[in-house]
């Protein structure tokens, strides 16, 4: 191989490298992302069969903890989903879904929500009375099942994997004010 040929070959390599440098110099990699709508989503897993007595079931989100019967108020209830299909083994939900509360789907306010749960009712009609609600599953964080977990939604962040297990045979402790 002639040395002249070798150097011309190398010149091509250098030219190609410089070309790559030129093209990528226009690209600045990661850029700030436009603010995302805040909200949440997750999956409810029903690990035991549904009792026949259950007439309807919902996902509920309370902003403040339910420590007293008086904490169960419509002002504290920030999310009340539409009915979960009866008999479902798994149900995916999102704050962008149509819901009773809030009435219009859209961004869900960022912040901390102290009580996220799956509730069931046995009344014939939808009731907002505490005595008609029975909690069948609660959202926990960090594996701590001794107390309800807090759902944290950072600003402009859509939080996923808010997952809840429902065991109808082994319901969680009930908030005060029930039957």
């Amino acid at each position, binding site marked *: *191989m002639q040395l002249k040929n*070798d*150097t011309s070959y*190398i010149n091509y*390599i*250098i030219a190609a*490298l410089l070309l*790559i*440098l030129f093209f*990528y*110099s226009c*690209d*600045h*990699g*990661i*850029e*700030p*992302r436009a*603010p995302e709508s805040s909200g949440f989503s997750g999956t409810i897993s029903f690990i035991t069969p549904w009792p026949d007595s259950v007439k309807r079931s919902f996902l509920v989100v309370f902003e403040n903890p339910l420590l007293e019967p008086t904490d169960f108020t419509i002002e504290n209830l920030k999310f009340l989903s539409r009915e979960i299909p009866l008999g479902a083994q798994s149900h995916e939900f999102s704050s962008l879904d149509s819901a009773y509360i809030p009435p219009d789907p859209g961004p869900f306010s960022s912040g901390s929500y102290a009580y996220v749960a799956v509730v069931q009712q046995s009344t014939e009609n939808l009731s907002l009375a505490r005595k008609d609600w029975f909690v069948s599953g609660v959202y*926990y*964080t*960090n*594996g701590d099942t001794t107390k309800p977990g807090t759902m*944290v*939604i*950072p*600003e*402009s*962040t*859509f*939080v*996923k*994997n808010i*997952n809840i297990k429902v065991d109808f045979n082994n319901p969680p402790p009930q908030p005060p004010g029930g039957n």
Partner: protein
Amino acid sequence: MKIIFKNIFSGTKLLFVFIILIEGNSLAQTYSITGKVVDANLIPLQGVNVVLLNTYFGSATDENGNYEINKIPLGSYTVEFSAIGYERIRKENIIITDESISLDVILKGIAITSEEVLITAGKYEQKKSDLPVSSEIVYGNIFSERNFSNLEDAIRFVPGVVMTEDQVSIRGSSGYSRGTGSRALLAIDGLPFYTGDTGEIVWEMIPATELQRVEIIKGAASSLYGSSAIGGVINAITRNISDEPKTIVNGFYGVYDKPYYNEWDWSGERRPFNGLTLSHSNKLSDFGFNLSFTRLEDLGYKQDDDFKKYIGFLKTVYNFTPSSSLTFLANTFNKRAGNFLYWKNSRNALVPPDQNLGDRIETNRYLFGLIYKNLIVNKFLLNIKTSYYRNYFKDNETNPNESTSNLYRGEVQLNTNLNDFLILTGGVEGSYSKVNSSLFGNPDAFSIGLYLVSDINFNFPLIVSVGLRYDYSKLDSLNGSGAVSPKIGLNYKLYDNLILRSSLGTGFRAPTLSEAFTSTSTAGITVKPNPNIKSENNLTVEFGVNYTPFTFLNLDLALFQSEYYDMIEPGIDPSDGLVFFSNVVRARIQGYETSFVIGILPEQLSLSLSYTYLWARDIEKDEALKYRPRHIFYSSLDFRKWNFELGINFRYTSKVEEIDEELVDLGIVVDGDLRVPVYTTDIKLGYDLEYFQLPMSLYLNAKNIFNYNYVELLGNLRQIRSYSFGFYLTI
């Protein structure tokens, strides 16, 4: 065991007694070969490898071109001088009768050769061209030339090696495990350098300016090094002690540029960084030392990512006789730093989440080592190494995380060249670690290993390397486990310029105390212990060819495959949502690696290119392993003339396919899914003031010159564009 290690200093006294006893039996007379190597212009050459062929004696020249090979028995030798870019010279029939000799040579420059010497692959000096495995060498001069104050900065440019923040991955061996465990073993002068609690590599503790070179062995090396060497070995070799009093002052000052996007400019200023090293070396009769002190300060381009570091280093060597010596190493490290874990979000990419503002951490680490060498009856080289490594860190949380670990190691190794064709290397090593920690509890662990490797040199010319190692390790109350690690390697020189190599090796890694016992919650991430964790294993196969068709061109190709069993990876336990380490992955890593080194203009202009393709899969889930890029490309263009040098380095890794998505989904790392391919370009300018008769070099560095924004780990923007000025003064 505990009693023995609690009395480590008593043990050290015993070692001295043992040494003295051995001294009494070491009566063989030995000699040395010294000399100077210069180029055609009589300028001293640094880093020239000088070896006595068919022995394990060898050395490299210092910055003044001087070399010294000690403890050579009587005999006739062939001395070989080689360096990249210079013609190889062999001096045959050098006869040592009754006195040491001096041998000076002039090396004629050519574009390139591939003759380099490593001591890491077989735990004794071997030519790179004789090895059955892929290897790389990083020379110490780049740390000052490119203002690298941290060894990991240099490792980032080694072909086939990828860093994810401070965790190293050799050919895809590792992802990111939050500072826990390592699938590459780091050693300093052959002393393993991992912490007793997390088993992690603390790169920043290594005194970069004290390094002569860094050797990297790719692929499983557990047959010699045991646990942690499952993916490879990185050995940092410190500088030889100077024969004449020598003082080095190395300093730099630089600033980070403003971030590319104005909304990221949290400080409103260009953040500065600086460093200064003072180093002195001297030899007094049979005693010599290297002593250095380094101070590094960085105000950080990220908020709460500032640091001040102080690194102390002492290396002393005492020659009892020409054939025996005792080396003492001390490496101390103190750091006070912000504790930036991840960004607030992509619009606030250089500031931490509000709840983590003001998080800080203080670290104190100490390594002490003793290395005793003795050539016994001209045939056996005894190597005894002991070390003590203490780590302490504490953060400023309301309930502070605080941890102390103590790691004690010892190794006895024997090399023998029974004849010109066979070199045997065998040894036994043990370690004990004790931890007191709010994160890991108070567990202890111990391990012991036995190894034997034989290198057989046939005339055809074929070199066969066969080895076997057995390790037993036990973590506190967990069941102990053993591992057998065999290897076989072949090196065949088809022609002088065409070398084939092949190796099959096994590796294993015992879980670290932190992988088994961590229990903590920080910044929204909760980690739980796993008492059922067990060792991981792998099998690595490699075929390689090295071809030098012309003196100015070297090509290397390697095909490799690693099978991992019971691979330990962090993950989320679906039953409770907690992070834990478990043996969940059956993984396969395949790929190939090519490198080209081209001397475009002899001694003036060179270009090196390397490309690695990695296919790293979790074959149970049929998805890519986390934090492994599929394509890795590095290139460098270097020009040197008239005391002037210019270097351009370019690095590309493709966008990683898998990351810790759970941390993104749960909103812990907001916008953590943002990641891009990595493109970085650095430029270096250097000038040697030799023309003005000043023993000083000046350097200007611009890093990430296109201010490209990328992450290696989710939510952690890597260094933005920076400029620095440095100097290297030798007195």
